[in-house]
């Protein structure tokens, strides 16, 4: 019965999305499944050579192979794991961290708020790509460092949104009542502020993850990614490093398919993000 109700509410939630949103959801679901079942989806290994180099797509290697003879389909399915991990990991870290900072700044006010707002101002005017490159180079290429660096440049938006929301919320009399019953800050954050701002954070997470995935691809493209975990960006980086790729036909599979995967993922996220925003805040309308 419980499960039945949950499925029903999930279907109802799905129905609220527009056509593009529905498409986005389905595509994201497929990419997720692809990432989860990566080892079973491709017959070939993604780190070792499994045929001749640079074979165009055929029945054996459905998306062809790269210059080392590694199967591209295997690389893309496994790369989805990295891209999604970086995307959602960064987004989650940035949204939760930024969200909590926003709540604390708004609720506590005073000096904390002032310091945080100035910090946000500084982060906003800082050119993010050069600094990211610097930081990534400084910390060294590892997946965790990439997530951290991306998160450092992503928490500003959620922090600002949450702060303004909490500034409004804390004037509500139910918060004042709770305070008068002796509620501590942690209780208010846990019971009132977080649940209240979580829909906004959800939208942020979707937006940020799409941004993080592209940024990760960018960093990888610049050679700052983790060479051991081959993300989609890194595949593109390798392909482009192949001298004279545009003079050959190799780009038709080696470059096209990772690019296509990346584009489908970010476009789907954009669709979902747009719909979620509308659903969370009915005033925006459609």
């Amino acid at each position, binding site marked *: 019965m419980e499960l039945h109700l949950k499925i029903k509410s999930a279907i109802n939630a799905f129905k609220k999305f527009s056509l593009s949103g529905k498409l986005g959801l389905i595509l994201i679901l497929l990419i997720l499944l692809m990432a989860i079942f990566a080892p079973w989806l491709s017959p070939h290994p993604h780190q070792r050579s499994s045929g001749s180099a640079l074979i165009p797509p055929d029945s054996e290697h459905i998306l062809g192979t790269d210059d080392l003879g590694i199967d591209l389909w295997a690389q893309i399915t496994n790369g989805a794991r990295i891209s999604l991990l970086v995307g959602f990991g960064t987004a989650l870290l940035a949204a939760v961290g930024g969200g909590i900072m926003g709540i604390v700044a708004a609720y506590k006010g005073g000096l904390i708020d002032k310091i945080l707002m100035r910090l946000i101002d500084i982060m906003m005017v800082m050119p993010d790509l050069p600094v990211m490159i610097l930081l990534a180079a400084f910390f060294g290429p590892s997946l965790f460092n990439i997530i951290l660096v991306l998160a450092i440049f992503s928490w500003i938006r959620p922090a600002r949104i949450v702060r303004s929301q909490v500034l409004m919320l804390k004037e*509500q*009399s*139910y918060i*004042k*009542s*709770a*305070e*008068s*019953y*002796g*509620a501590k800050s942690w*209780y208010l954050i846990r019971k*009132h502020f977080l*649940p*209240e701002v979580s829909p906004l954070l959800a939208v942020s997470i979707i937006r940020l993850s799409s941004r993080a995935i592209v940024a990760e691809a960018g960093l990888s493209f610049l050679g700052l990614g983790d060479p051991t975990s081959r993300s989609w960006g890194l595949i593109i980086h390798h392909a482009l490093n192949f001298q004279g790729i545009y003079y050959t036909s190799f780009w038709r599979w080696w470059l096209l398919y990772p690019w296509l995967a990346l584009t489908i993922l970010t476009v789907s996220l954009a669709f979902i993000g747009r719909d979620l925003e509308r659903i969370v805040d009915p005033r925006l309308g459609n």
Partner: protein
Amino acid sequence: MSHHKEYLLKVDDLSIVYTGEDDKVKAVDQLSLGLKEGESLGIIGESGSGKSSLALAIMGLIKDGEVQGKITYQEEDILAASAKRLKEIRWQKIALVFQNSLEVLNPVLTIGEQIKEPLRRNAQYSAQELEERVIELLELVGLNPDWRDSYPHNLSGGMRQRVLLAMALSCEPELLIIDEPTTGLDPVTKDEILQLLKKLQQRMDFSMIMISHDIGSIKELTSRVMTMYCGQVVEVGLTDKVLRDPFHPYTRGLLNSSPNLFKYKDLWGIEGEAKPGEGCAFSSRCCQSGANCFGARPPLEYVAVERRVACHKGGIEEFLEARNIKKTYQLKDKEITAVKEVSLKIKSGEVVALVGKSGSGKSTLAHSIAGVLDVDEGEVYYRGEQVTDNWATKMIGGMQIIFQDPSSSTSSRMKLLDVVKEPLEIIKWEDREQRKAKAIDCLKKVQLPTTEAFLNRYCHALSGGQRQRVAIARALVTEPKLLIADEITSMLDPSTQANLLRKLKGLQNQEGFSMLYITHDLHLARKIADKVCVMNEGEIVERGVSFEILENPKHIYTQKLLTKAFKGLI
């Protein structure tokens, strides 16, 4: 009028015990009082509180009871006086106007004869003089002398009262004791009798003790008043002040049951029966009795100028005191002082209405008192202790505030049950089951359904009135002793409003619950408020007992407010 320092009448430690077949009844219990010459003393109390026994004892008329103590009249001990001397004192010095009824007068004698009787007994008059004196007396009490040949059953109640008065005044007494002069009389006659008594007292200059249930008569005729309960004095003070601001819960109970003090207010009797025991006799019915009230009898002690109260807690407790509250809002280019040094007191079991138009600073004051708003200056004391860090609002049996706007006072995102039990969750009261049970209990009080489906509804799915009631239930869940209610009924339909207010009034009378009721609905304020504070531009411009403020406002702003509010009366 001569002003003697000594008392005309002095009663010390008087006890009267009637011995029945099975048990002894203590009608008067260690009572002391003093009456100066020219003074008029009112005695109030419920039936059976010993008022009439006291009057009879002063007259030396207690026959079948055991009398202890001392009654001194002009330095003469009445209890020790001989029967002959007593007869002289009666009528000539002290006269009693009996409680009006047919039995008091002899049915077979004309009233003329009956008035002649005390005259004949106390002085030597010729028949002619007697007749003249009777006519004179009847004229004095405003009765046509032609009635002197009638029999008592020919007379109306008001006329008989006049006859009794004529008899009592026949020997020009120095002290007149009047027992229930207006009981059973119609309003017009009652007023005539009261005016007559007033006129007679001025003309004949007698001292007076008036026993009455009728607070209106007491207010009209006496300068001091004494409240009796179970044969004991519980409060003594100047009539004007006692009626305006009673210090003993019993006196207040009597006043709240009196319809003629303030005609618009609701009537509330005192709950329970009199059960005199070891400790304070009133403790079993008192709304503020605590553990120490049952131990010993409280002494009658001075609590203010000319005011003595017998209460272990020194009279009605003071729940809230706000001192010099000041709050200024900073706007961009100007400063707005919303509350200017306002002080406020609320006693236990009192409903104080804070009225005024919107923007007068009512809500700011309420929020400052409840501690949800930081004040610029001033302190708040709850039960004598300064409120810091919200201690008074985060406890069971403390202070609670209910906000005006229901859509903001409950979170749309939360389930109804979670909203109502939130205070209990925060103060970590008992366990889950008990919290839920208590929440359901409070929801019943505000007349909301308590089915599982309803409890799990989200607040955004409720109507404004329902949400308001949820907010009220949440405030009641901590069993507050003091409720600060900011326009709580403005969102309710009249029927729910009436039911809720009656519930709160019930709590007030049973448990000493008190309320600061902020409203701009003066009709409601008139119905439920004991005291009224009128606020205008951040200041309390007029404050006092509701019957005075709402009937007879002094301040020009209050007058304006009232004329506007009551203009549309149907």
